[in-house]
Each structure stands twice: as C-alpha cells, then as structure tokens.
C-alpha cells in the first residue's frame, strides 16, 4: 500500500504541475483576486481559464481527442484536478455541463448537434445546466410532470423544474419531460436539449432556508423546441437520464465548511479543548473524515487500475452532511450564549459554524437525501430488494399523488 503515482502517473502529474505553474498565475486564488463568484468579471476569468485548458487538452481529459478532449484516463483527470486544487484554481461553472450534460449530448445527439455544442462547452464559451428535479417529484426523479406535446415538427413544453444549479448563467440545458402520461412512469418520458435564453424559459432564484440563493426554479410556458433537439427516442427519457446520472457519480467531491482543525481552533478560543467530551467527539469526527478521505484514495486506486467506481461512493455524502450538521451545532453550542451571533464580524472564525449549521440541512437533501442514499447502498451495493413499488406498472396519470 502506498500513495505513490505509477511512473506514468508521476510523469503526467509533473507535466500538469509545470503547465499550471506557467499558466495559472492570475487564476491562482479565485477569491483573493477580488471578484465575487457569479459576477461577470469572475465568470469572464473562468471562461478564459477554461479556454486555455481546452487548448492544452486539460479541459476534458478523458474525452476522445477527436472531440477536442485530452484522450486521457480517469486517473489523469483526478491528478490534474488535484494539482489544479493545489494551486488554488477552483471555478465551478462548467462541472455540471461537462460532467453530465454534454456527455449525454455526445451519447444521444446527431453528428451535427454534437459538432455544434461539444467544442464551445469544452472551451467554456457556453454553459449547460441539468433540468431533472421537480417540486412534486423530490427523491422520485422519474415522477417528472413537465409536459411536452407534439405539434408538427415541434414540441410544446409546459411545467416547472426546481433546484437547478447554475440556471441563472446557463446558455443551454438538458430537460426531462413527460411525453406520454398513459404509460407507466419510467416509459413515458423523453429528453431534450433546450436554449435557456428562450423567452419561454423563466429562471427564478430560490430563497433558501439558509438565507442564500444558490439554486433556482425554472418555469416553461409554451416553450417550443424542435424535434431535432430530442436526445434519444421518444419514451426513452429515463434511460437517457440514467446515463446522465451515472456520470454524476464520477465527480469526486470534496467537502467544504469547517473541519476538525477549525473546531480545534474554536475549542482553543473557548477553553473547550481540555474537556473530555469534546476530545471524545473530536476523535470520532477525525476518524470519520479521515475514513472518507482515505476511501476516496481507494476509489482513485480503482480508477488508476482502470476500474469504474460504483454506487459505494454514496457513503461520502451521508457521512459528510451529517457530520457537518453535528459538528457545526457542537461548535455553536460551544460558544454558549454567544453562539446565536451569526455576523462574521462578531462570531468566532467568521461565523464558520453558524453558516454551516444553516447550510447543513440542505446538504442532507441535495443530490439525494440520506434516506435515498441508504437505499442505494442497501440495494445496489448490498443487493437487498427494492421497496415494494405501487407505481411501476400503472399509467403515470393513475399513480397516486394525493392531489
């Protein structure tokens, strides 16, 4: 067991490191350069960086060279990501598009469409978002109600999506809609790509319980799309969506927010560091966080051997989200009466624990609730049976919904 690169990996890492050293200077710290995330200036810098990466085969390392990709391996992609992280470059605008949407386009669109979209997306010229979740669906992604009705060579779309990351700055999106409510739910859906700038598309930010607005609602009112914008066959939308969602899994996400070092710092400030109860908890948090980090190394080992990581990576968010909630609450309580103060100017460590306390409930839900992720582990890792289903063999319109 070791953490060493293979000779090929070490060479790739060295090359990447050198290239980053020479090129990443003005992108090195995305917050220190004084541009707010989501501001036009920040976005412009990000696009510039993406274009530069694309030029040098670092934008989409695993994509075939014929499409402008790097023609590399998943582990090379991980290595570049690590090195990029080390020099402090961390733009998030393109992750969903290049990680989930465009691969779906590449798998299901015609040659013309692919030629039109792959390059600009890779170079950061166009940003994509993913439009699957709906208010009434929640954990049940296949309960899509947004309706598409054929009208000549076009489809007319009405309905609403929710929790759409990046909708406010996206140029295109992939959209899952119901085209036939008379067949069982998984069989009556179809996938399209759409133009987010169409006036029939309205993006509204969601005011979250945490106070912020990272996500959006997206409304469609008589949006007309051409049949040629269809991805896959009519009625095959769920199959297409599964390909998109499978690609999601490969995104190796790190956790953000306060960690064990942050809470040790707080404990030192509030004199809690000597308390046995705190030390006991700290040990548990460290062991779980370390377990998570090291499990990612195991995943990378599998990637390095050319294997595909499976649904077992679901454990990451279960651990991270619950630990974030527990630890941030512990930190807030450690501040005692003072813990209610939420202003970064007043609260210790720039209110890191208050902020993550408010964000944690969202993290336990976004991208699969604790409950859904445990189902995934139970069913897809351990092989236990699925829940008894009452919605599989009836027409979608007859599935009980309570409304």
């Amino acid at each position, binding site marked *: 067991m070791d953490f060493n690169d293979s000779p090929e990996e070490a060479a790739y890492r060295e090359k990447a490191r050198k290239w980053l050293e020479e090129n990443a200077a003005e992108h090195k710290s995305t917050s220190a350069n004084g541009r707010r995330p989501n501001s036009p200036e920040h976005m412009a810098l990000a696009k510039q960086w993406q274009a530069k990466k694309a030029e040098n085969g670092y934008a989409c390392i695993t994509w075939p060279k014929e499409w402008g990709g790097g023609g590399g391996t998943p582990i090379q992609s991980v290595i570049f990501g690590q090195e990029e992280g080390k020099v402090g470059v961390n733009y998030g605008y393109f992750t969903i598009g290049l990680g989930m949407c465009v691969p779906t386009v590449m798998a299901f669109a015609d040659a013309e469409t692919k030629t039109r979209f792959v390059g600009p997306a890779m170079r950061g010229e166009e940003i994509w978002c993913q439009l699957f979740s709906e208010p009434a669906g929640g954990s049940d992604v296949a309960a899509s109600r947004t309706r598409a009705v054929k009208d000549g060579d076009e489809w007319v779309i009405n309905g609403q999506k929710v929790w759409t990351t990046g909708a406010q700055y996206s140029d295109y999106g992939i959209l899952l809609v119901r085209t036939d409510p008379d067949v069982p739910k998984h069989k009556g859906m179809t996938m399209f790509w759409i133009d987010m700038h169409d006036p029939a598309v309205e993006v509204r930010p969601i*005011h979250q319980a945490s106070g912020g607005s990272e996500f959006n609602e997206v409304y469609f009112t008589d949006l007309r799309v051409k049949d040629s914008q269809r991805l896959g066959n009519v009625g095959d939308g769920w199959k297409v969506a599964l390909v998109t969602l499978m690609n999601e899994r490969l995104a190796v996400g790190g956790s953000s927010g306060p960690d064990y070092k942050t809470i040790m710092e707080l404990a030192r400030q509030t004199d809690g560091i000597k308390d046995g109860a705190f030390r006991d908890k700290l040990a548990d948090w460290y062991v779980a966080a370390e377990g998570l980090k090291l499990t990612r190394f195991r995943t990378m080992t599998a990637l390095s051997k050319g294997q595909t990581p499976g649904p077992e990576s679901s454990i990451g968010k279960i651990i991270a989200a619950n630990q974030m909630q527990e630890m941030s609450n512990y930190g807030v309580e450690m501040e005692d009466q003072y*813990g209610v103060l939420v202003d970064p100017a007043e609260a210790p460590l720039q209110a890191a624990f208050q902020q993550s306390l408010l964000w944690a409930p969202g993290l336990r839900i976004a991208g699969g609730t604790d409950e859904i992720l445990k189902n995934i582990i139970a069913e897809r890792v351990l092989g236990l049976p699925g829940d008894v289903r009452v919605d599989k063999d009836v027409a979608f319109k007859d599935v009980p919904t309570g409304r």
Partner: protein
Amino acid sequence: MNFDYSDDQKFLKDEARKFLEARSPTSAVRVVLNDADISYDKALWKAVAEQGWLGAAIPEEHGGLGLGHVELCAIAEELGRSLAPIPFASTVYFVAEAIMLAGNDEQKSYLLPKIAAGEIIGCYATSEGPGAVDGGSLNCTVSGGKLNGVKIPVTDGDIADVALVLASEGGRPGLFLVDLNDASVTRETLKSLDPTRSVAKLTFKDAPVKAVGAAGEGWTITEQVFDRAAVLLAFEQVGGAGKCLEMAKEYALERYAFGRVIGSYQAIKHKLADMYVKNEVARSNAYYGAWALNTNAAELPAAAAAARIAGSEAYWFASKENIQTHGGMGFTWEVDCHLYYRRSRQLALVAGGPKVWKERLVSQLERRNAA
C-alpha cells in the same frame, strides 16, 4: 398521583393555543423575521399583556394573577409552539423571577406591577464573549454605583427598558438593575441565528445601578434564576418540538413519492417514532421541573437541568428531522421548517448551552449520591 396539567390548567392552555393561533400565526412571525428593523411583535406583546400572562406567576399584591408556576408553564408551552416573537422569556422567566427571588420590597413594588401590565420590557445580561459565563471572571465591573463594561449578546437588549446585569463589584459577582434608557448605555442590535428573537450588544459607561440581592451573591442568584428559567424554557422547547412532529407527520401523510405517501416508508416512520420518543422524554422531564419549580423543591436544580437537557435535545432533533422529512421543500425560506430550526438553537443557547447544564446536572447527582 396527578402528574399532568389539571383540568383548569388544560383549559388555560387550550385558550392560550387558540389565542396564539389567531394572533401569532407564522405569517405574523415572518414579519419580524423578514424586517431587520422590527425586533418584536408589539401588537402581540400588548395583547399578551392584556391576557394577564405576563403576571401569571406574579402575586396579586404586585399586580399579577397570582396563579402558580404550572400555569406559566402551560402558557410557555403554547408560546414555544407558536414561535411568538416577543420578549416574554427575558421579561418574565428571567427578570420577574429574579426580582421575586432576590429583589427588595421597593424593587418588587416598582417593577413587578409594570412587568405584569406590559409597561416595561426586561432583559438579563450575563454573557461577555464566546464560551460559558463564569461568575468568577467578569469584565463588567461596578464601582461607586456605576457600571462599566460590555455585555454581548443580550437577548432583547435592544428593546428592553431595564436590565439585570451580572457584574463584578470589589472582585465579587453582584447583580445590578440598570435603566437602559439612560444616556450612559449604548445599544447595538446584532444579527442572530433566529431573527425572530432580537439580540444586542450593550455598552455601559458609568451607568448608574442599583444592587439586587446581597453583595457578592450575584452568581448564586443567577444560578437560581437560570434554574427557574430553564424549566420555563423547557416548556417552550416541548411546545416547539411537538409542533415539528405534527408538521412532519402531516407532510408525511400528504407527500407522495414512488406512488405512496412518504409516511408509509419505515425510514420516515421510524424517524418520526424517534422524534416522538424524545418529545415524550422531554415532556416528562419538563413536568417534573414544573413540579419542582411550583413547590420550590430541593430537587429543582437537578430537575431544571434535566428538563433543559431533554428539551434542547428533543427540539434540536425534531426541528432538523422535520426539515429532512420535508425534503427540498423544507429547505426553502417559504416553508416554515427553518423557523423552528432557528428557534431551537436560540432556546438551547439563551440560558447557556447543554454543556453547562450537563455539568450542573452531574454535580447535583454527585452531591445526591454523596448524601
């Protein structure tokens, strides 16, 4: 054996619920939540005063209703349930209790009728920075009848008329009454995890004070006041946690996923059962606290600590798992779940966090076992 509200108390509680459902729906709570310039619901405060609730446990001779503390507990449960955005706890659980406990006749005659009538708002100031307060090392000092120093945060400090301030006099902790409308006091409203309950920073520069209780007894009195407040706060916690379970249950019965209501999945059913168990443990401990408070029993310190620990734990669990049960909807500003999540934190911190209370409880158990 009558370990429950009496029929009269139940009637009072039912009336309080109806009153608050009409006067403090979450739409009204949100007015305070959304407007940084509004610190509390003035109309509700006035209405509550008219109900006589502020003086429920204040003797009739001092303008109160002279009911027992169990009646006040019943009201507290409903206030907690309704998220009432008013300085009730600060004024009644802390200041009125402190004056009844340690004030002299003049202070009682002057303050209690005004509190009962809703004419003054009070606050109780102990914290000076991050971490638990300790009566032994206070930066606020009194000398020659003048108070100097900073208290932060002080719940309702921005809207209160009077404060009881824990400060050091001659190296020993004392409790002091301060008129906050005096020019020697500067107030700054601060942002809170729970914007429906205001907090402030109070700066005193030679503020004139009057001692409450004997010199050097400030910390002892504060501990006794906090015991009493802990029981009453526990009822607010029980009320809030109970409401969270109701909300989660109702949502679980109407929300469908995969063609079934989500309340038919064991993951949700057992989560709600866990909530129920914690809520019952909290309620039973709160009742015992009410008994000890009402009879001024020797068991009060242990009973108050147990009530507070159980109440804090139950409300935390119920409020966070209520959001989880609601899924994405629960994480939106428009759905009420986060109001309870925020209030659960405010209530858990306002009289000191669980750490302090667990230590108080275990010290009591050690003493009991030694006896």
